[in-house]
């Protein structure tokens, strides 16, 4: 009987880890896109995710998506629509603020603009958090859907025992996350914008000589990165209540995921996020639950110690 319970516990933790990890992965991809193309560490990424959650919430309720699509499909439509809204906000943020301390304008700045970038993105994070507190208040909200309280039961696999519950809301969120990553991967690999992004990332000077508008590519990368994380936020909000400070809870996960995957690697960031989800959920099988987050960072330190470049990072800096 103990073996059966253990089997069920392991399978359940694995399922929870995969579901949580996929969302973490999508969040990390957004951050990695910004870092990979622009080499800007965006400390405000968690707060853009928070804005994505509020955007999805208002699209779902106030803009009538819930009335048109219902409470089952509506939250996912709203989460996806939050992407274009945050794309515009990200585009404007880059144009008005970030572009002054990044890209082709950094030659005259100390440390190639990295100090200014850190301070600026931290400042944006503070403004967004406190602005949201003033504007939206301290109330908790979520995109309420009946799917978040029901599950697909897989099994029982062993007589009446060993069932795995897959939460419907998290399951659909995970599927949409994979879809968004697939579309992004296709876009970067095959589209004209994707080629411009890759050229701007690999060698901005050469890209300029070849007629690529590097500043515009950076702007698109920033906006796209913010939009992807916002979609992840919207998907998370179907299950997780949010407030203006929710970004702080996730920004560390995003950074850990990006570093685990290898700084600059977009697919690596996905696997980094996935690893964090799996470690967070599966560590409870052998460690006390209150050490869930400690387990993430012990694992993170081990990876940084044995493989400093991360899963998919390159050892040699790009030329």
């Amino acid at each position: 009987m103990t073996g059966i319970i253990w089997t069920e516990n392991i399978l359940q933790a694995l399922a929870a880890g995969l579901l949580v990890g996929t969302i973490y992965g999508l969040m990390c991809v957004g951050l990695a896109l910004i870092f990979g193309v622009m080499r800007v560490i965006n400390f405000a990424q968690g707060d853009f995710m928070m804005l994505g959650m509020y955007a999805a919430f208002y699209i779902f309720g106030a803009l009538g998506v819930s009335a048109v699509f219902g409470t089952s499909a509506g939250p996912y439509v709203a989460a996806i629509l939050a992407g274009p809204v945050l794309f515009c906000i990200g585009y404007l943020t880059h144009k008005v603020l970030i572009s002054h301390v990044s890209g082709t304008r950094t030659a005259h700045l100390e440390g190639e603009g990295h100090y200014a970038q850190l301070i600026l993105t931290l400042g944006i994070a503070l403004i967004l958090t406190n602005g949201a507190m003033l504007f939206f208040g301290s109330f908790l909200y979520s995109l309420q859907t009946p799917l978040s309280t029901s599950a697909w039961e897989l099994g029982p696999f062993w007589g009446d025992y060993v069932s795995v519950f897959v939460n419907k809301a998290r399951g659909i969120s995970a599927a949409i996350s994979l879809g968004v990553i697939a579309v992004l991967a296709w876009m970067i690999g095959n589209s004209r914008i994707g080629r411009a992004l890759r050229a701007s990332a690999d060698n901005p000077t050469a890209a300029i000589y070849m007629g690529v508008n590097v500043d515009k590519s950076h702007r698109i990368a920033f906006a796209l990165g913010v939009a992807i994380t916002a979609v992840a936020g919207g998907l998370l909000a179907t299950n997780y209540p949010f407030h203006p400070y929710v970004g702080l809870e996730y920004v560390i996960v995003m950074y850990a995921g990006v570093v685990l995957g290898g700084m600059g690697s977009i697919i690596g960031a996905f696997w980094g996020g996935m690893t964090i989800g799996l470690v967070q959920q599966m560590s409870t099988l052998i460690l006390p639950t209150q050490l869930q987050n400690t387990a993430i960072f012990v694992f993170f330190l081990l990876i940084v110690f044995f493989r400093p470049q991360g899963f998919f990072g390159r050892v040699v800096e790009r030329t």
Partner: protein
Amino acid sequence: MEALKINRRDLLKSTAATAALAYGMAGASAFAQTPAEVEVGLIVPLSGIYARPGQVMRMGAEMAIEDINAAGGIGSLGGAKLKLVIVDAGDSTEKSKNAAQRMVAEHTNLVAASGAYLSSFTLAVTEVTERAGLPVLTLSYSDLITSRGFKYVFQTSATAASQAEQSLPVVIDLATRATGSKPKSVAIVTDNTAASVASVKPMRERLLKELGIELVVDETFTPPLADATPLVQRIRSARPDLVFFLPTVISDAKLMLEKLNEFGLGQGRIPLISFGIAIAEPDLLKTMNPALVEGVMTCVGNWGFKGHEALIKRIKDKYNEPWMTQNAISTYGDMWIIKEALESAKKADKEAVAQALRTVDMDGGPARYFPGGKLKFDENGRRVGAGLTIVQWRNGIPSTVAPANIAMAEPYWPKK
């Protein structure tokens, strides 16, 4: 008879003297009409993940200040009005401690304060206020708050251990009467904040054994949870008769209730008894289906109860709060306790107010805003005979169901 000689210099002198006298009299009369305001502090989290409960505490304090001032202020100080000084305790113990330091340094006229929501924050804040000699009233639960030998801390709620001791027999009795047999096993799922840890300690060490109940799951988590699956999976494997759940963050309450439902254990299939107010906060309804929380009981230090109907209506009208949580009613009561202390201290001085709080002994007055006991603090600063309230979700509203003398509804056992 010598002729009265007045030169210009004398005239100027006498005019100046008359003007000064007139000004002084006018000033004195003005002071007599409007005595200086008395500053009272409220140090609560107004930013970060605990901002919402902090804001509700602020509502309670503001309502009380409004009522006290409308009723004529502090009679023994010539009708002096109270002025609320609000300080943001932030979202960590470090920030709370810094906020307390800022409060005592910048507001030297404070006579007393109330705060700081989370027991962990109150422990940090009172380390500072104790040294500054500023009396602080608190609704926090942790036994540690009033077991450090401090002289300027006054705990109005029953301590966490006392609440566990008072509530467990009531809950077990209710379960036994409703189901016909006494629960045999229990799961404890608690976060690791100071109040929760203090509530669980006597249960693990003594109370469950005394009641003949086996502890089959004992899980402690760090809030906020990302997912409640591992916790609920443990419950599913052990199938206890009851779950004792001690969250501090509302999101944890939501995740747990939804996950129990998802695993087919919710809505009374395994009855869940909570401790603390997180599971009865109005915000919970903004994030989840009310049906999932119906029948859930929670043991709380204080709640809007019988006799508070007018206050509950006011907070609804004024702030759109659907009911009066402990955060609102206890902070409201704290301001009235400070008012009583000022009345007997007869001066706006923190040391005199602290002394008045140590010696106050009343049955009525502000005691009516707290369950059980009276308005009297023991040598540790604990309110003598402090009771608790058991609150149950009924038709989408958490109502006080025990003790019977202050209950607004009858309790029922949610077992299916």
